[in-house]
């Protein structure tokens, strides 16, 4: 309670100082919009639905791409951990590609898939799949062998051992990898949307881009705020419940 109070007071203070600076006219309002102007823009663009539609276009790309990244990344990680050959080949490739900033996939994706919806989704997939795969593989390799032995003496073998023992045992690692994958995917999608216009859907990145074209600083800052809020909400909705479960079960973390 005390902590959220602190946060609220801090942000009220910052907004207050900001508004004050804007009112005093220390900088040109074109470069330094006041919080009130930004608020006005946000309300306006929610009312004419541009912001809502752009957000939903962006989130749809993000969720589809991220889901595909998980569907590919987790099994790839499991195979990497299980088979030395896959580890040496795909595992090495994953390690290399993870060091590649995911924004760098944007040009390739555009040349391959054109200015299409899938080009955007492909960037998201490439942003998330390597982190998820590497984390899954690391998770599997950290599973204490005694878990597997115990399961075997209870009659577990093969796929059952993988699904019911190794996978849940590496869950803390996998969730960490999923969070990192999410962060990379989110960043690369924004870059892709700012970089190029796709006519099938007008996302937050495009909105940001046109904000700059129109020199509409209130729009630029307003959309940046929306992007921050989406990031925070994703963390709260997607990952917090899972992390709370992990902390409770494994007895890690402070509560």
């Amino acid at each position: 309670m005390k902590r959220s109070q602190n946060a609220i007071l801090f942000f009220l203070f910052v907004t207050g100082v900001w508004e004050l600076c804007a009112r005093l006219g220390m900088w040109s309002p074109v470069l330094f919009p006041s919080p009130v102007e930004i608020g006005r823009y946000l309300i306006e663009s929610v009312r004419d639905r541009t912001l809502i539609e752009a957000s939903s276009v962006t989130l749809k790309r993000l969720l589809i791409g991220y889901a595909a990244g998980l569907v590919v990344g987790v099994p790839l990680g499991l195979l990497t951990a299980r088979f030395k050959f896959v580890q040496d080949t795909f595992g090495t490739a994953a390690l290399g590609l993870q060091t590649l900033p995911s924004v760098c996939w944007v040009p390739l994706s555009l040349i391959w898939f054109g200015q299409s919806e899938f080009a955007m989704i492909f960037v998201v997939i490439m942003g998330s799949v390597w982190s998820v795969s590497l984390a899954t593989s690391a998770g599997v390799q950290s599973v204490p062998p005694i878990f597997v032995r115990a399961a075997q003496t209870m009659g577990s073998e093969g796929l059952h051992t993988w699904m019911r023992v190794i996978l849940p045992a590496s869950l803390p690692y996998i969730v960490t990898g999923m969070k990192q994958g999410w962060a990379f995917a989110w960043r690369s999608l924004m870059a892709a949307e700012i970089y190029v216009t796709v006519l099938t859907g007008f996302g937050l990145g495009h909105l940001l881009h046109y904000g700059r074209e129109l020199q509409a600083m209130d729009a630029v800052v307003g959309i940046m705020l929306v992007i921050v809020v989406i990031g925070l909400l994703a963390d709260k909705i997607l990952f917090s419940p899972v992390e709370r479960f992990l902390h409770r079960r494994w007895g890690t973390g402070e509560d």
Partner: protein
Amino acid sequence: MSLETESGMAETSALEVESVSKSFRARRKTMQALDNVSLKVRRGEFVCLVGPSGCGKSTLLNIVAGLERPDQGNVLADGKPITRAGADRMMMFQESALFPWLDVLGNVMFGLRLCAGLNGKKRREVAMDYLKLVGLEPFMHANIHELSGGMKQRVALARSLAPNPRMLLMDEPFAALDAMTREQLYGDIQEIWSQRKKTILFVTHNVREAVCLGDRVVLFSPHPGRIQEQFEIDLPRPRDINSVDLAKHATTIMRSLKRILRPELQEVAE
């Protein structure tokens, strides 16, 4: 020393280990963990394997569990060769090896879910019965990290017993516990064993513990791992680890153990 069943019928032993050898390679050196070891265990017998570290007692347990293969020799459970791990021979470890992603009940249910011919309701009933047996029914929904060491081993015991294995293989299950908890568990395990009549193979380096629990104590000598001597323990049950009679038996075995250890110590001294 007769190890046949009292009935004298041509009944197969619960476990027959026939001249088993096993070696491991470690850093250019080959370690002979087991050298031509033979052992017969009657159905319902409680056998304790004792010996200094490196005598291969845990290796033998792993082979019986089906987690490792012998280089030579045969191992038969109920007359059938052991080819892999299976729920008829349940293993308990020094660390509880309970799964942290499941709660207490979930852990006990794990093995039961692998038993064919049980529906969900029946499985739950069986799991609850065994939790009751080890006195942890109120903790059915507790997380594993919330339990004490002794409680963890009790859950592990319930988990091992629930699928009704014919044999229980215990690898120093009480070694990491404090003395008081251990003494409680000596009582529990004897009671459960006499109720359920399981065949138990119990590895320990604690001679008193072996005498307290075993119908028979098998003493191993190390490098290479061999059976040195066997002791029938005919003390009445339930046994108290602090009793004088028990101490006398333990002293006899301890003396043999020291004879084994002495050449080892001399080797180190040189």
